[in-house]
């Protein structure tokens, strides 16, 4: 089975859990910017092997499904329809053979995920089908999807209860997006970074009390934060060390930069903060112009929240698998 890209949308790419374990060779992880949303989309179509899904940014793709397919949409709210039928999010949908799925604009948030049962089956590179747009690794040398791309879908057994019928058939239940999508855009938990103490007093306060906004100049590599210029007490000359997603760096311009999924594996700018891992997907869902505020957290608190979040996700994944079996 193939899916043909009719319209790619602003920036759509194939993403999975990414490519961990190769940073020593200069290869970053990449992967879905909102991992729980990606995981839930896969779970809703019964994929359990970390299959690749499409990540759409700000606008969606239009795709033709050659054969009947089972899909799910998660992440940022996105308008979706096949012909006159609207396609609901956060649930499992059957599409008839020949369906053209139109994904429209993303009203709030930044990134939506489309999973298909069987997963997009492009060749895996270093164990991942993720496109690293920055390092040019992945499907078609790691570029964004283009009109005319034909994406193979892996073959799997049909989903239990899969019934031929109308053009779009959602299952009779759906997930509450609430815990998995931050509609309120609450402040993000931030740990003090290695060089936080070297900020001047005003900048130390601003980092935790100030309102920043996400710059237009943001992508899968980094979010640039507008609104306040921060300063060190004295300039620091640092040698290159490992860099990580979630690190808030301060380049000489004074504009803070939060590294994201496609962060380079090394960096030499002062690290003034580290966003708690549990809140990184929420930053990935901010769009240019959105407000970004931080509140200070401790490592203990961050780890406790992360563990609780992962437990909740694991329970939900279990529930979805059970529901799919008994549908």
């Amino acid at each position, binding site marked *: 089975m193939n899916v043909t890209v009719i319209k790619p949308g602003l920036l759509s790419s194939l993403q999975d859990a990414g490519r961990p374990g190769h*940073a020593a060779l200069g290869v970053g992880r990449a992967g879905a910017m909102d991992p729980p949303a990606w995981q839930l989309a896969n779970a809703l179509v019964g994929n359990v092997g970390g299959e690749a899904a499409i990540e759409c940014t700000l606008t969606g793709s239009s795709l033709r499904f050659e054969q009947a397919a089972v899909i799910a949409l998660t992440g940022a709210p996105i308008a979706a329809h096949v012909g006159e039928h609207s396609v609901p999010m956060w649930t499992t949908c059957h599409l008839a053979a020949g369906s053209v799925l139109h994904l429209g604009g993303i009203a709030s948030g930044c990134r939506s995920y489309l999973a298909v049962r069987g997963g997009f089956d492009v060749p895996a590179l270093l164990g991942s089908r993720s496109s690293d747009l920055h390092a040019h690794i992945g499907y078609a040398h790691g570029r964004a999807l283009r009109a005319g791309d034909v994406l193979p879908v892996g073959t799997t057994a049909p989903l239990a209860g899969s019934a031929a019928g109308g053009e779009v058939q959602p299952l009779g239940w759906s997930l509450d997006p609430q815990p998995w999508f931050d509609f309120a855009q609450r402040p993000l938990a931030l740990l003090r970074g290695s060089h936080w103490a070297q900020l001047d007093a005003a900048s130390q306060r601003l980092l935790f009390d100030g309102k920043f906004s996400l710059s237009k100049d943001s992508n899968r590599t980094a979010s640039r934060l507008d609104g306040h210029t921060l300063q060190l007490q004295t300039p620091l000359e640092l040698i290159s*060390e490992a860099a990580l997603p979630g690190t808030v760096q301060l380049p000489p311009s004074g504009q803070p930069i939060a590294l994201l999924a496609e962060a380079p*594996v090394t960096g030499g700018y002062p690290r003034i903060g*580290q966003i708690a891992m549990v809140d990184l997907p929420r930053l990935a869902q901010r769009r240019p112009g959105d407000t970004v505020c931080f509140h200070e957290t401790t490592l203990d608190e961050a780890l406790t929240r*992360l563990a609780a979040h992962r437990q909740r996700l694991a329970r939900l994944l279990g529930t979805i698998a059970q529901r799919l079996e008994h549908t």
Partner: protein
Amino acid sequence: MPPAIQFEALADDALLLRFGERIDIELNACVQAATACLRQRLPQVECVPAYASVLLRFDPQHWSGGDPHRQVQAAACAALEEPSLVTAAPHELVIPVCYGGEHGPDLAEVAAHCRLDADAVIDRHTAASYRVAMLGFAPGFPYLLGLDPQLAVPRRTDPRQRVPAGSVAIGGSQTGIYPETLPGGWQLIGCTPLLLFDITANTPSLFTPGDRVRFEAIDEDQFRDLAAANPA
């Protein structure tokens, strides 16, 4: 092992083990030895060497029953206290380079800055033995230690949008090779026809941290022959 190792919590899932804050061949030798030792003893931790530090990245859930950072730190300290069982000899690579001309458009400028003639720059660049301190910037980009101090030149004030793949360059006291066409601000003195990084190969990167490297000057004809034998 050197006396002072510092640990720093970087993130929920990461610790930095630091040997110092200088670019120094001896510190980096400690980094490479520690990386080899930790990989052997803590296979569940990803170890990423840099100039003077090693990143330890782990799954905090894997270290349940207490503070994962404290557990990883204790495990790393214990691993480093035991002498390593096997010290694998570093790989030695000889990299053919066509210096100057279209392959090294900044060679004359570098020579002028160093008050040497172009041949002397080439002689000094090929005479030294280098170590791969770390890979970064782009997949397969080696940061090499061991540049003759007389060849240190500042980065370009106007970085190039497109530095050709294989370009051998000097930036400050470092030298390196661009694995693919990339933007870059280092001074280009030559180019190698070798392919540095191929994601589809069993070993994608020609270099790994800790490797020994020498450069060997080749002429235009040899460059063309080797390039034909190593299609990108």
